[in-house]
């Protein structure tokens, strides 16, 4: 079950919420939709789920255009909207039954599905309670159960872990991974570790535009400006700044060196090297020559956080300067 989004644009009045967004999601892929608040994540999801039409552009789910086949599309989609809205005065089973009926389930198929979802989402102990009495973690499980009650091929989850405590977040993530195994999942978030923990692929949006698209690893590589090497050397020297620092700084490919401190004759340095060069071998040989003990030598990876920050902050600064210029 694939999702095809082409040239999607949405205006709210004069405000452009999303601007010419195109992407594809393949079958049984878990896609993370990442972006700062107000980037257009929720708007895109609302269009994909047929809540509202785009100003222009198209969305197809498994070949069905959303614009003309809304009912067919809705049957294939399970949706957990932002903030997980629920009827607080209904009890869990009644609510799930209601959702299932609206998806056309009835009779033994309905009870079977109900039992499956209650088990899968771990809400058996609260199934006769009113939703309003539940903790946030349980409510989120009910929201997920509701989204999957009709066994949809596509799951659209808008910030499924927002407002949960760290333990609940881990549990919900596990649940999404487990239940979403055979499904196409799109989940939005502004929490970065979430993407790394759950998603096969990431799309970063900012100000209504896609600014990056790829696996988390690929994005980390692509947006690495320079490589960083962390070096820890044990050596009995008087002053590491005059005896070790210049040696490291003179190595080929090293742009500059940060001294990070000394404790008990162990000296730590951070080397910024040009992209594509590898100074590790040289460091090793130098250490052997000078009779230093190399305690640690590793590449510092760019975190997705840095990629995200770079992509979304840069634009902000640019648009700020546009504003001051005009």
């Amino acid at each position, binding site marked *: 079950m694939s999702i095809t989004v082409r040239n999607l644009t949405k205006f709210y009045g004069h405000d452009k919420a999303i601007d010419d967004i195109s992407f594809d999601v393949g079958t049984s892929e878990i896609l993370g939709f990442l972006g700062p608040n107000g980037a257009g994540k929720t708007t895109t999801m609302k269009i994909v789920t*047929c809540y509202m039409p785009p100003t222009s552009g198209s969305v197809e789910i498994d070949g069905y255009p959303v614009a003309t086949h809304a009912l067919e599309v809705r049957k294939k989609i399970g949706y957990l*909207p932002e903030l997980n*809205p*629920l*009827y607080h005065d209904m009890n869990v089973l*009644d609510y799930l039954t209601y959702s299932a*009926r*609206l998806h056309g389930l009835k009779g033994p198929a309905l009870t079977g599905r109900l039992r499956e979802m209650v088990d899968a989402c771990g809400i058996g102990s609260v199934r006769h309670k009113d939703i309003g009495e539940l903790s946030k973690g349980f409510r989120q499980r009910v929201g997920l159960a*509701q989204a999957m009650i009709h066994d949809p091929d596509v799951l659209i989850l808008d910030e499924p872990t927002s407002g949960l405590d760290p333990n609940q977040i881990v549990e919900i993530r596990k649940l999404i991974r487990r239940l979403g195994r055979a499904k196409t999942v799109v989940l939005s978030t502004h929490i970065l570790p979430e993407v790394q923990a759950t998603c096969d692929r990431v799309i970063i949006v900012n100000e209504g535009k896609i600014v990056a698209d790829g696996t988390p690893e690929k994005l980390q590589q692509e947006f690495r400006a320079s490589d960083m090497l962390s070096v820890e050397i044990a050596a009995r020297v008087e002053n590491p700044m005059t005896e070790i620092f210049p040696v490291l700084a003179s190595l080929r490919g090293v742009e500059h060196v940060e001294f990070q401190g000394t404790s008990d004759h162990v000296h730590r340095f951070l080397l910024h090297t040009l992209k594509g060069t590898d100074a590790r071998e040289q460091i090793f040989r130098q250490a052997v020559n000078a009779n230093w003990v190399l305690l640690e030598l590793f590449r510092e990876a760019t975190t997705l956080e840095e990629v995200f920050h770079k992509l979304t902050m840069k634009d902000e600064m640019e648009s700020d300067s546009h504003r001051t210029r005009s």
Partner: protein
Amino acid sequence: MSQVMNQYRESLSNAHTIFRKELASYFNSAIAYVVLVVFLAIVGWFHASNVFLANVASLRLMFEIIPAVYLFVVPAITMRLLSEERKSGTIELLVTKPLHDADIVLGKFFAAWALVGAALLPTLIFYGTIAVLGDVDHGPIIGGYLGLFLMGGVYVAIGLFASSLTENQVVAFIIGFVFVFALFMLDKVLFYMPVWLMGVLEYISIDYHFSNITRGVIDTRDIVYFLSVLGLSLYLTVVSLARRKM
């Protein structure tokens, strides 16, 4: 053809699902009981305190009181139907389920109408008591109940429309009240209107048609009036629900 029938059946079953859920939520919360008790108390008091004074075995007075009681009871019943869904965001889940907006509107409409109908049932006691006490002309009473039921439907449809306009229940109540009050007052202010407008306004006013029915004359023109105001309000509700699409 069979596809059309299938769609029709699906719509019906969706509306029925929503109807059941809404009716259950009236009776699970205090709303239904408060409505039933308050309605019966007010109507009963006005009816009982006058029926012996008038010394006539009729429900005419009750049929005059109930439209006035409806004015605030019905908007109170309908105010939460759509506004609450919008406020809590559940409307987003509801409209992304595989159903038509009209299924939602119809399900909710019939649930509220059923509650209004249920509020009428206990007043049959008064019918019973006057039937014991004196000679009753049954025609006007049957017509009166039919009229009250249809009027309730019209008010519910208008209240539901009001509820679709806002996410604030209090605002929904006030808008609903203003609409039904205007409809109710029209034939009471005819006196102040220019002559050429009178005919039109009289036809639009709900009391004119209601009083025709309570005389025991069930005229299709009056039924058509009730059903068309009801239908128009429901249509406007569907349109208002689709406003998100703009």
